[in-house]
């Protein structure tokens, strides 16, 4: 069933989008050649650059008159890309979001408050219509005005909050400051997306807001949120909505497809199975993960991908050493009192690459003794050196000084000229 849909999708792209027809011709391939999973490997990958080069409508498979909505990526990693949805695409997308929300324990009747911005970003409207489709009461508050969000949670009896994890933490902190009692609040579930959610941050929000936080995964290029979501039994994985996505994991260096049951980490490659507006074949997500097909305790049989911890794009090369921000998060999670809020700055002012960690000081580690604060700073620096095999300058900064973005938290700043 899944494979038949894949074949249809390949034919749809080939018949209607010159880009795919040319790519197939270049490797001597036609849609009829795709008969087994093995054959899929012959289809050339699609990269983000293809969407940029054909900006805005060059990869659309239908006339614009059949496109009922446009969305665009935020452009955090370059120029924006634009995608279009037909009526059917919007329906499929809604189904994916509904599946993802049900996994997170959202049920009809839940009051779901939106703290994503609407706009061109897929998160806002995507989750909005999914929640309505599920029979929830949608509260389209939108991004910003944190105190109003808290008032709405209280007054409307909100049970589920859609936000980036960093903004959810901001709402939590503002609530605490104005004396809002999160334990007594009706809020039950957090649906997080838009940026990776480190486990420590998730645990912190869970204990301070007294909710269950789930995060979900998706990307504008293949649809938006709803590609996969977390169930309540397997907190470190997300079930892929396999009715709608064909997945592969590749070695990003050799581009070889890893065996389906290998459970090895590699780059996730996705093909949406029913995308009429802008079909995308074998999209290289740049997200590194591993996929398991082992049964899940929740009873779902779909494959589960490990939470995306890093992207091939995130990798920093510092004095020849590869560093992922997620490694820094891992180290911080082992140090009692170390905050999950940080920024990494790379520069070469002195001629040599230098990595600086700006770490927020948590109230529980602050003492007014220089010796103790210096000892804490040195402990963090030593542990980082041990794991990264690289000297890292650690600077202690005030809590709240890493920006809590309503969109994506910017944790890494590369100032190298």
């Amino acid at each position: 069933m899944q494979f038949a849909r894949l074949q249809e999708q390949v034919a749809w792209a080939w018949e209607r989008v010159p880009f795919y027809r040319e790519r197939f011709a270049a490797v001597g391939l036609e849609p009829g050649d795709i008969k087994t999973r093995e054959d899929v490997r012959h289809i050339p990958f699609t990269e983000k650059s293809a969407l940029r080069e054909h900006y805005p409508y060059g990869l659309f498979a239908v006339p614009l008159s059949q496109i009922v909505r446009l969305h665009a990526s935020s452009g955090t990693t370059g120029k924006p890309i634009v995608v279009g949805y037909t009526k059917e695409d919007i329906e499929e997308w809604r189904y994916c979001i509904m599946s993802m929300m049900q996994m997170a324990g959202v049920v009809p009747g839940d009051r779901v408050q939106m703290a994503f911005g609407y706009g061109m970003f897929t998160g806002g409207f995507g989750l909005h219509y999914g929640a309505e489709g599920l029979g929830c009461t949608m509260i389209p508050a939108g991004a910003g005005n944190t105190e109003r969000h808290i008032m709405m949670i209280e007054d409307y009896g909100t049970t589920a909050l859609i936000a980036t994890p960093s903004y959810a933490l901001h709402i939590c902190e503002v609530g605490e400051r104005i004396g809002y009692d999160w334990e007594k609040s009706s809020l039950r579930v957090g649906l997080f997306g838009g940026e990776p959610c480190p486990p420590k941050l998730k645990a912190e929000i869970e204990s301070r807001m007294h909710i269950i936080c789930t995060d979900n995964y998706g990307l504008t290029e293949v649809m938006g949120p709803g590609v996969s979501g977390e169930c309540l039994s397997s907190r470190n994985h997300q079930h892929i909505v396999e009715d709608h996505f064909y997945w592969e994991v590749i070695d990003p260096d050799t581009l070889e497809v890893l065996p389906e049951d290998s459970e090895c980490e590699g780059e996730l490659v996705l093909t949406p199975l029913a995308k009429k507006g802008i079909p995308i074949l074998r999209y290289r997500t740049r997200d590194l993960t591993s996929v398991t097909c082992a049964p899940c305790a929740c009873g779902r049989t779909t494959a589960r991908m490990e939470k995306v911890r890093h992207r091939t794009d995130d990798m920093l090369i510092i004095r020849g050493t590869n560093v992922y921000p997620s490694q820094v998060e891992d180290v911080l999670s082992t140090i009692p009192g170390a905050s999950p809020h940080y920024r990494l700055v790379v520069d070469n002012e002195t001629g040599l690459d230098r990595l600086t960690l700006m770490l927020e000081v948590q109230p529980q580690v602050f003492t007014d003794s220089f010796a103790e604060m210096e000892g804490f700073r040195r402990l963090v620096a030593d542990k980082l050196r041990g794991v990264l095999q690289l000297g890292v300058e650690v600077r202690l900064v005030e809590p709240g000084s890493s920006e809590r973005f309503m969109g994506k938290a910017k944790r890494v700043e590369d100032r190298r000229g």
Partner: protein
Amino acid sequence: MGVTQIGVFLENQPGHVSRLTDVLEKAGVSIRGFSLADTTDFGIARFVVDKPAEALEALRAAGALTAVTELLCIELPDEPGALDHVFSAVANAGLNVEYAYSLVSTYVALKVGDIQQAQALLAGQPIRLIEQDDLLNSHTRG
């Protein structure tokens, strides 16, 4: 028991101290003494005030990181030899001082290990120990 010191975490950036003093002023708190020291990237501001509870509440509400420490406080007459007199008494009592700084007019505050023990050891010395309430009095008098 002695006087209350409020330590506040500071990043070395222009305006950070004035932000704190502004918060204290708005809270109607009078600073009776302070000390500022820094390492290369962060600092700790230490305040002794007339109303520590109000000061602490205002600073925390403003998002500052705070730590409370009790200090020994001794009267320091404004005359030659007074500081020597005080530190001789402290030395005679065998106390180790981590740091010390002057407060308004005629007091000196000292960070020592066990403040209760220090006060007991200094009881026989010819010096006057100061309590938190004395700071309030001197303020209202002025």
